[in-house]
C-alpha cells in the first residue's frame, strides 16, 4: 500500500497497484477466470461448436422472427421474390407511405402504356423510394411529374444495383419506360458482394434476407442466383448453407470474426476498436473493392435499357455527412466527388446530387431527416428539379 501525494509522489505507484493477488484477490481471480473464458471462447470453442449455433447468437430473436414471417409471406411490407430476393408488397400503406397494386410508390395507377411524352421508372433503395416521413406526392419521382412526364417509383428498401438490374431485366421493363433513373447510395459498391444481409449488417433486424449477387470473371458478369427458399430454414440446421456463403459472400469474414471475437467482453472491445480503426482508414483511403463490379453492372444496366429503347440516368445520392461535412471530415479525401468523376469519366450519365443539394442553399437540416440519410420533401424537390433538366437535356424523348 502506498500513499499518493507523499514526498515520493513522482514515483510510479502502478507496480504496487498491480499486485492484485494479495491486495485484491477477488479482482485477481475474476480477471483470471475472464481471461480463461475469453481464451476458450476464442480459441477452443470454434473447433467444437458448429457455425450454425453461432448464427443463432449472431442474429437477434427479432431478426429470426422477421425472417420466418417473410418466408411465410406474412411480412407487412415486403414479399419474397425468387430472382431478386424481395420486392414491395402490393397494396400496402404505412403512415404516408403507400404502395400501389404494381408494387410502385406512385402518385397514380401505373399503366403499361402512356400517352405522355416521357415515361420514367425509378429504381434503387429507400433513398429513392422515400421514407414514411414524406408522402407519395413528395418523392423525387412525384416531383418530376407534369403533363409531359409520368413516373413509377419501384425503388425498394435495401436494394443494391444488382437487384435493381435484375428487377428491371426480368419484370420492370414491361412498364416500357423511355428513361430509367437508378439511385445509388453514397457507397454504391456496398452490398454488391453480399448475399446474406446479416453478414454485412448485423443490426438490420427487419430484413435478414438472402439476395442474389454477381461476380466478375475477367470482364464477364456471372450471376450467383438466390438460394432456394428453404435456405432460410436450413441455415440454422445445416452448416452447408453457411459454407456456401463462406465462398460467395465477401462479408462472411465479419461473421467469422464474430465467432471468435464477438462473444466475450474483452475481445469484443478489442474487435470494436479494430473495426472503428478500419472504418477510419476507409474514410481516409477509400474503399474501392466494389468499384469494378459496380461499373460492370452499370454497363449491363445501360445495355439492357438500350435494348428496350430507354436510356439510364444514375443519381449518386449523398448523405448529410457527405453533403455538409463537419469538423474533421472536411479534411478527409472527397470519395464521393472522386466516385462521381470516375463514373462520369467512364461514360455513364451521372447526376451529382450533392452539388445540386449544395447549390440549393437550403441548410442540411432542411434537406435531410434526423437520420441524416433520407431526404425531406425539400431535398427530394431539389434533386427532382435537376433530374428533370437532365432528362430534357439527354433527350428523354420516347423512341
Amino acid at each position, binding site marked *: *500500500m*502506498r*500513499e*499518493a*501525494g*507523499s514526498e515520493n*509522489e513522482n514515483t*510510479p*505507484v*502502478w507496480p*504496487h*497497484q498491480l*499486485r*492484485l493477488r*494479495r*491486495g*485484491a*484477490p*477477488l*479482482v*485477481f*481471480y*475474476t480477471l*483470471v*477466470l*475472464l481471461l480463461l*473464458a475469453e481464451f476458450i471462447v476464442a480459441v477452443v470453442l470454434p473447433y467444437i461448436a458448429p457455425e450454425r449455433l453461432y448464427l443463432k*447468437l449472431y442474429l*437477434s430473436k427479432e431478426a429470426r422472427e422477421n425472417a420466418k414471417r417473410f418466408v411465410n409471406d406474412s411480412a407487412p411490407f415486403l414479399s419474397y421474390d425468387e430472382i431478386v430476393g424481395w420486392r414491395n408488397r402490393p397494396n400496402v400503406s404505412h403512415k404516408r407511405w403507400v404502395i400501389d397494386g404494381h408494387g410502385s410508390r406512385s402518385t397514380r395507377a401505373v399503366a403499361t402504356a402512356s400517352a405522355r411524352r416521357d415515361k420514367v421508372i425509378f429504381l434503387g433503395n429507400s433513398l429513392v423510394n422515400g421514407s414514411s416521413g414524406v408522402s407519395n406526392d413528395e418523392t423525387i419521382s412525384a416531383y418530376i411529374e407534369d403533363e409531359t412526364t409520368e413516373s413509377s417509383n419501384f425503388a425498394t428498401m435495401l436494394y443494391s444495383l444488382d437487384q435493381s438490374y435484375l428487377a428491371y431485366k426480368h419484370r420492370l421493363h414491361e412498364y416500357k419506360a423511355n428513361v430509367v433513373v437508378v439511385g445509388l447510395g453514397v457507397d454504391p459498391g456496398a452490398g454488391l458482394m453480399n448475399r446474406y444481409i446479416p453478414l454485412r449488417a448485423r443490426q438490420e433486424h427487419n430484413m435478414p434476407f438472402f439476395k442474389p449477387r454477381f461476380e466478375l470473371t475477367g470482364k464477364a458478369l456471372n450471376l450467383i442466383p438466390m438460394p432456394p427458399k428453404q435456405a432460410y430454414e436450413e441455415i440454422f440446421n445445416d452448416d452447408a448453407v453457411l459454407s456456401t456463403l463462406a465462398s460467395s459472400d465477401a462479408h462472411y469474414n465479419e461473421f467469422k470474426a464474430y465467432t471468435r471475437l464477438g*462473444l*466475450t*467482453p474483452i475481445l*469484443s472491445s478489442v474487435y470494436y476498436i479494430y473495426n472503428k480503426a478500419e472504418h477510419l482508414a476507409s474514410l481516409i483511403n477509400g474503399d474501392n473493392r466494389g468499384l469494378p463490379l459496380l461499373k460492370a453492372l452499370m454497363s449491363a444496366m445501360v445495355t439492357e435499357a438500350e435494348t428496350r429503347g430507354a436510356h439510364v440516368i444514375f443519381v449518386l445520392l449523398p448523405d448529410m455527412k457527405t453533403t455538409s461535412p463537419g469538423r474533421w471530415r472536411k479534411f478527409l479525401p472527397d470519395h464521393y466527388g472522386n466516385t462521381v468523376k470516375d463514373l462520369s469519366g467512364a461514360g455513364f450519365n451521372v447526376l451529382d446530387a450533392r452539388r445540386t443539394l449544395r447549390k440549393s442553399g437550403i441548410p442540411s437540416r432542411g434537406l435531410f431527416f434526423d437520420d441524416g440519410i433520407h431526404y425531406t420533401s425539400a431535398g427530394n424537390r431539389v434533386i427532382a428539379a435537376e433530374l428533370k433538366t437532365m432528362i430534357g437535356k439527354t433527350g428523354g424523348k420516347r423512341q
Partner: protein
Amino acid sequence: MHFTSVQYLVFFLVIYLVYWRLNARRQNILLVLASYFFYANWNWRMLGLIVLVTVADYFNGLRIRGSSSQAQKKFWLAASIAVNLGILGSFKYFNFFVESLAALAESTGFAVSFSTLNIILPIGISFYTFRSLSYTLDIYRGRLEPTGSLIDYAAFVSFFPHLAAGPITRAKEFLFQLEKKRLLNGADLQEGLRRFLHGFFKKAFIADTLGFYVVDKVFASPADYSSGALWLGMLAYTVQIYADFSGYSSMAIGSARMLALKLPENFAFPYLSKNVSEFWRRWHITMSGFFRDYVYITLGGNRKGRARTVINLAATTLVSGLWHGAGLTFVLWGAAHGAYITIYHLWRGQDAPRASGPFGLFMAWLLTQLAVSLAWILFRSPNMAVAWIYMKGLIAAPGVDTIEVPLLVHLAFAAFIADHFAGWLMERQSTAKVRIPAYLQAIGYAAMILFLYHARTEAANPFIYFQF
C-alpha cells in the same frame, strides 16, 4: 454519459489512471474538472448553475461562520436557502405551480391565462442543491466548520459519482475526506469494483429487463390489460425502481470507493420492511435523513406531542413527494406515504397488538409491501387519470390483454429475490459472516459479467432518478 455506458467506463478508467498519479490537492482539482466534464457531456449550458451554487454557498458558509450576531448568521443562511431553493423552484417547480394556480383559479370560477416557460430540467438539480444546502445548514447549526478551499468545496458539490442522482452526501460526511491524503490500496479497488458490478447488474439486468418487457407496456395503456397483467406490472415496477435506483447508488458508491472516497449507503433492503416507518429507514436513506434532520426536526419532530408528531411526519413525507417531481402524482405519492405513517403511528399509540410470531410478522411484511407497491402506481403513472385506471383495473380490469413473460423476466425476479434473501441472511447472521473463498466468489462474478454481456436488454432505459 450514464454509468452503464461504455463512455463512462472509458472516462472512469482515464480518471482513475491519472488520479493516482497526483497529490491530494491535484486530485481534487482533477475531480472538479472531471465532474464538470461529466456534467457538460449532458448539457454544458446547465453547468453554470452548479458553479453558481458552489461559489454562492462557499462564500455563504464563510460568512455564516464569520458572523458576529445571530441575525447576521440568519441573513447569510437565508441567502443560501434563497439561492438553492430559488434555482430549484425556478427550474423544477415554476411551471407546476403556475399550472396548479391556473387550475385552482378556474375551479373557483375565474378564467385566467398564465404563461408557462419552456424550461429544461437540469439533471441532478434536486441532489446538488440539497447537498450544497446541507453545508450551510450544518455550519449555521454549528455542526461543521467551513472549508477554506473553494476547490475542495467544488469537488464535494460536483463529485461525479454522486452528481446526477445521489446519494445526497452531507458535507460533514465528505469534505474531510477531500482534505486528507488518500491511500491507494487493493481493498478499496476490490470493494469499489464489487459494488460497481452489483449496481451494474441491478440496473442493466434486473431494472431494464423488467422495464422493457413488463412495466413500460402495462403503464403505456393499462386499460388494455387484464387484472393479472396489472398486478404483474405493479410488482415489476416495485422491483424495477428499487433495482434502478439502488443500482445507481451502488455504482456511485463503487466508483467513489475506487478513488478511496466513501459515500454513504442509500439502501438497506427496503422490501424487508415490516412497517412503513421502517421502509423509510431503508429506502433512499440519505434523502430520508436529509428531510428528517432539516424538515421534520425543524418542524418540532416528536418533541411537541403525539398529534404534532404525526402532522410533522405527514408533512415531511408530503414534501418528500414534491421533491421527487413537480406533478400531482408525486405529491399524492408523498401524501399516501404520509397517510401510511400516520396510520402506523396512530396504531402504535393505541397499544394495539404488535405483530409477533412468524405469521404475524409475515402479515405485517405483506401489508407493508402491498401498501408500498400500490403507492408506486402513483409514482410511475404519467398522470392521475392513468393511475386511477390502473388502480381500478387491479380489481376489475376492462382489458383482457396479458403479458408475455420471457425467461429473462423470471430470472430478473429471481435475482431480486436472491438479493433481498441475501440481505435477510446478513441481517440475521451479522455476527457470523460466512467466508466464501475469493476464487469461488470470482466464479460468480466472472459468470455475472459474461451473463450481463449477453443478457442485457438492448432497449436500456436511462436511470429513473435522473429526472429528479
